[in-house]
């Protein structure tokens, strides 16, 4: 949802130097960004939450090396404070905490890889279309529009249902390959507004090649915007993966938060048996992770863009 509003908003002044090219202000220093970051409540809260989740994902399986699908504990135990199964156990006798920590790992993996891949494709298409213009822009725009209206999940549904063995890596790559269009469209619009600036003309006059101008002049001038785009794609990839897992097309062999929900509803009858500790943690994990990413996106936006700061 936030991704869509991001894609449709008008090109903002990403270079941060106002419309007047002749008198660019001094570049923002690193110190200034840290100064505002520490004072931004949105940034600090979301960063703190993310650190906690990263901690659970990295350290959880090390501290509690239970196999998430061992089915070794007493089934349907409610959560306790005693060491052992603090998050309780599933209908089949799996440790919910072990599933949660391992599932969180998978979510980070899918988000980073899927979101990262989508960001790369989006940047490649967006920069090329925005900088080149002309018929290259027309063709890339057409391709982007086609990918934009095809419902991603429906395509994934048909493709993944034919595969007998699926891994988390495969899932991440597929999400990356299908979720880039809005990013490409947004980056194209930003590139378009930078293209006619004086410093780009100067770079062209000095005889630099097109892709070099993109890498050294255009991309650094919108680096904060690119980073924000990546954060949104990261969160989006996690949500898509969760839906896919829940429909029953998740990784075969392995654990993920969406798969926990699928097992709880489809095989474990967690709702009817009242095993709330089975389906509440994965949902809270996804909401915390994706919510933290979205809030961090807005917090960083306010830090990078002085106009938006709440004074």
């Amino acid at each position: 949802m936030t991704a869509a509003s991001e894609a449709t908003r008008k090109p903002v002044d990403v270079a941060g130097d106002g419309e007047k090219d002749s008198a660019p202000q001094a570049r923002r220093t690193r110190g200034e960004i840290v100064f505002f970051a520490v004072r931004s409540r949105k940034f600090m809260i979301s960063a703190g939450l993310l650190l906690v989740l990263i901690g659970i994902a990295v350290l959880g399986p090390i501290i509690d090396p239970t196999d998430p699908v061992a089915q070794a504990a007493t089934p349907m135990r409610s959560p306790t404070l005693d060491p052992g199964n603090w998050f309780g156990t599933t209908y089949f006798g799996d440790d919910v905490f072990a599933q949660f920590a391992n599932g969180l790992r998978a979510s980070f993996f899918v988000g980073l890889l899927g979101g990262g891949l989508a960001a790369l494709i989006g940047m490649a298409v967006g920069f090329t279309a925005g900088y080149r213009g002309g018929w290259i822009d027309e063709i890339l725009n057409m391709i982007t529009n086609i990918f934009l209206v095809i419902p991603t999940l429906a395509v994934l549904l048909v493709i993944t249902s034919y595969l007998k063995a699926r891994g988390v890596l495969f899932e991440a790559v597929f999400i990356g390959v299908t979720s880039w269009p809005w990013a490409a469209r947004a980056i194209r619009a930003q590139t378009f507004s930078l293209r006619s600036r004086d410093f780009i003309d100067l770079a062209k006059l000095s005889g630099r090649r097109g892709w070099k101008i993109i890498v050294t002049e255009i991309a650094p001038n919108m680096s904060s915007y690119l980073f924000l785009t990546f954060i949104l794609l990261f969160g989006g990839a996690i949500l898509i993966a969760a839906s896919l897992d829940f429909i029953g097309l998740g990784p075969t062999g392995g654990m993920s938060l969406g798969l926990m929900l699928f097992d709880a509803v489809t095989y474990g009858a967690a709702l009817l048996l009242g095993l709330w500790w089975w389906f509440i943690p994965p949902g809270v994990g996804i909401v915390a992770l994706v919510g933290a990413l979205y809030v961090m996106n807005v917090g960083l936006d306010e830090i990078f863009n002085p106009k938006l700061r709440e004074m």
Partner: protein
Amino acid sequence: MRRYFGRKILTYLITFFVAATIDWLIPRFMPGDPVQGLVSRTGGLSESASKALYDYYNNLFGLNQPLPVQYLNFWTSLLHGNLGLSVYGNGTPVIDMIMGAIPYTLGLLIPAILLSWWLGNSFGALAARRRFLDNTVLPIGYILTATPYMWLALVLSFLLSINFKIFPLAGGYGFNLEPTLTWLFFTDLVAHWFLPFLSLFMVMFGGWAIGMRNMIIYELESDYSRYLEALGAPQSLVRKYAFRNAMLPQITGLALQLGVIVAGALVTEIVFSYPGLGHLVFAAIQSGDYFLLQGIFLFIIIGVLLANFIVDIVYVIVDPRTRVAMRGGTA
């Protein structure tokens, strides 16, 4: 006008062509043999019998013909509305099963989309630059928009149908009823409809509220707002202009978001066993019914494309600048 819509329709036609071609390509070029899978589902056959059955299916689906012919046949039967027979439905035509499910899905989606869009935008606009509302609506909005559709559905059904028993747990209407035009059936239908609708509505509401709130802040910082303020225009007038400008990206956002929303409806239906397309998708995957799955895929694409086209028309009506530009003027 003609050029604008011509371009849009061309994009949609190409999209449909690409999507349908993907639909045709996947079963033929994916690893594994779906026909073999179909044969082994029958089970307990001798080797010669399963060979005969294999040939029979290959012949039935036209898989023994050259690929270009298969591709042409695919389009011919597609344009005739023939999507094959459903394994899950014991030989019912796929198109009939889909047609039976579509009213339920649309009945969930259309009210949820329209209501959440309207209320979300209103709340978002109110929240912008108003500290109290901003501090309450915004965090709730972020939590809602980060919530996976199916999880909210699970929590709602656990709380409201299992713990408090206010709403029925599953299905489109009570198991003891037949679809008739009676008051009893109607109220039962609404009771079953409410929770899936509510979970779709809530997740979408959060997204629209946040989007509108951020958009209004951009607009209030822009030159025309500053100019109006400098002229001494009342705050309400400035906000009215900002709202009208912020609406346009939200309309485009709705078009962009349609695919995600449909996906949300699919998983929500699975949670409530609501007899719409999502429920069919789940059944098709669980029983390896590829014809049904591919048929649903095509219907989702057509639906999303049609909705996109409607949004395009609405956009032209709402934004006078597009109409001026179409007549060759400059806004």
